[in-house]
């Protein structure tokens, strides 16, 4: 059973896991079970080891906390870039008692600002009682306690309503840009995320596909690229360079961050969200050495241990 499952069933466990020491011990044990190794980023240079380090040492850093809130992240992106690059906000529900009577727009996306991986798509303005009940549950959940991601711990529960963007068919592709030490290393492109499981391709900074597999993610095989038009470039957004510049600007004050974009691959880009612990440090890659691509952005010689770039000198590393 996952940590979230335990806390949901036994709320008292949530209080126990609030303690930093207990939480870190628990998360280290889970990491070792999941990845079959002790987390040590300085030795391995693997992304999950870095994420584990961020989780246990500095995930309540105020910049990470502020940008984890989906409402505040938009303020941050606008403040940093000077442009309105985020998905517009249609409304914010701040009080649980407003949920029952709230009239949702015809087509929209509803998400908690203080949690990850929770979303309700609204079609024709219809929201079922079950969905409203789910939203009420969001308002009582503390995602930091559920997952050990402390930057969520002090966030105010709110629900944000955004327009349903249909940039790539019914659902948008997620362009997940992994920025390490202020430099884009790799971009994961998730397709079909809400249509029966995510399928993902990973490209390095030069938009060369990386052939890595994950048991947690349905991989879009590189050989399947033909289905989409013979070349990996079919996924490459026309505004890729601008996306890189924005992601690197957002990542300049952080050792590692993942900046998610939506784009129609032509002239529209939106910053979706800012993530600090990608996949909650649980996503396994095969071979594990390929995790380094999210750090270095290089492919050649990736399995050579000397390839590892160690973090040094930065406060939030």
């Amino acid at each position: 059973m996952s940590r979230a499952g335990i806390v949901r069933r036994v709320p008292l466990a949530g209080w126990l896991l609030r303690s930093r020491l207990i939480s870190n011990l628990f998360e280290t044990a889970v990491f070792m079970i999941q990845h079959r190794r002790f987390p040590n980023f300085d030795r391995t240079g693997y992304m999950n080891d870095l994420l584990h380090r961020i989780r246990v040492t500095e995930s309540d850093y105020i910049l990470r906390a502020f940008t984890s809130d989906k409402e505040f992240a938009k303020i941050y992106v606008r403040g940093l870039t000077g442009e309105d690059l985020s998905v517009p906000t249609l409304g914010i529900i701040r009080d649980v008692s407003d949920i029952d009577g709230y009239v949702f727009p015809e087509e929209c996306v509803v998400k908690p600002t203080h949690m990850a991986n929770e979303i309700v798509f609204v079609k024709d303005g219809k929201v079922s009682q079950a969905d409203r009940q789910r939203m009420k549950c969001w308002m009582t959940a503390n995602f930091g306690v559920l997952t050990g991601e402390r930057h969520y711990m002090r966030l105010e529960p709110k629900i944000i309503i955004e327009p349903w963007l249909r940039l790539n068919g019914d659902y948008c592709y997620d362009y997940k840009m992994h920025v390490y030490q202020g430099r884009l290393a790799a971009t994961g492109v998730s397709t079909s995320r809400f249509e029966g499981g995510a399928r993902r391709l990973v490209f390095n900074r030069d938009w060369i596909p990386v052939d890595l597999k994950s048991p947690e993610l349905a991989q879009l095989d590189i050989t399947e690229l033909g289905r989409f038009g013979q070349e990996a470039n079919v996924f490459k957004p026309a505004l890729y360079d601008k996306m890189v510049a924005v992601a690197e600007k957002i990542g300049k004050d952080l050792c590692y961050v993942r900046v998610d974009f939506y784009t129609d691959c032509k002239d529209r880009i939106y910053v979706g969200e800012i993530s600090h612990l990608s996949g909650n440090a649980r996503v396994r890659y095969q071979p594990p050495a390929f995790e380094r691509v999210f750090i270095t952005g290089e492919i050649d010689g990736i399995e050579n241990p000397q390839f590892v770039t160690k973090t040094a000198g930065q406060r939030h590393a």
Partner: protein
Amino acid sequence: MSRFALVRAFPAAGFLFRPKPISDLYETLAFIYRHRRLPDFERTGYLNDLMHKMKVCQSEFVARSFTTDKELAKIFVRGVTGEDLCVPTLDVIRDVDLIDGYRFPGNCVVKPTHLSGEVIFLRGDATREERRRMRRWMKLNFADMTGEANYSRLDPKIIIEPWLKLNGAFSHDYECHVDRGRVVAIDLGMGENGEDGRWASFSRDWERLPVRSLDAEDLGEASVGEMAQSGMERPAQLSRMIEIAETIGRDFCHVRVDFYTDRKDVLYVGEITHVDNGARERLQPIEAERYYIRQGQARCRGTRDKSAGDIDV
């Protein structure tokens, strides 16, 4: 010796006050000693009671912490207003080891981003004593010194800004108190850096409020002509100042937004303050503390940032 002085002298002693019950108990006793009353905002509707409540209940609210940091506050202001309204940043020193060799520009102001009330005005390069003081800033945790938890998670950094001389050799501080989204009062600080100097309070329509601070030199009663002479006349950008302060303040129950202006066309946002004067400033008459609170307004929306509850006065 006060908590502030003790932790300032011995930063390691801050650990003694870090447990929240100890910190809150100390701050409540200090409040009672200072103001000769128990803090009870719901009953009194006084500013200091609200400040105390915020200090012990919710000064850890993430947006408060973020906007407390002087570097990050500029990103917030630009994010909510869409304009570059803050004093430009010349540089930020993030590493204590860089202080000794740093070449400061002439005519600049040096401040720690993670502390309050500390500033060095530099005409030329910094002296050895000033550098020593800066190195000391990097060791201090303002939350340990004051109980203001919004400072507790801030990185120690030093920000360098140009020395604005908008009102003579220094700039006056126009401190807009925004309560539940509306500017209710504006304090004018006229000393060096607006602190420890002369002080007057105005309504949002720039009428003098009959309130006096026991902790600053009062500017006294003055006619409109005398006010103009002494630099207290209505700033030309007052309405814009109020509009900006209310935009910044819409995410908070109560916040103080400070401005600098030449009273004509130059306007800068200075800083954002959440616990005004650490809930220590004594005003006379005491009922005047209510000028800083919107009376009879409904409870703040939201679940955590709701310290300004209903007022029963």
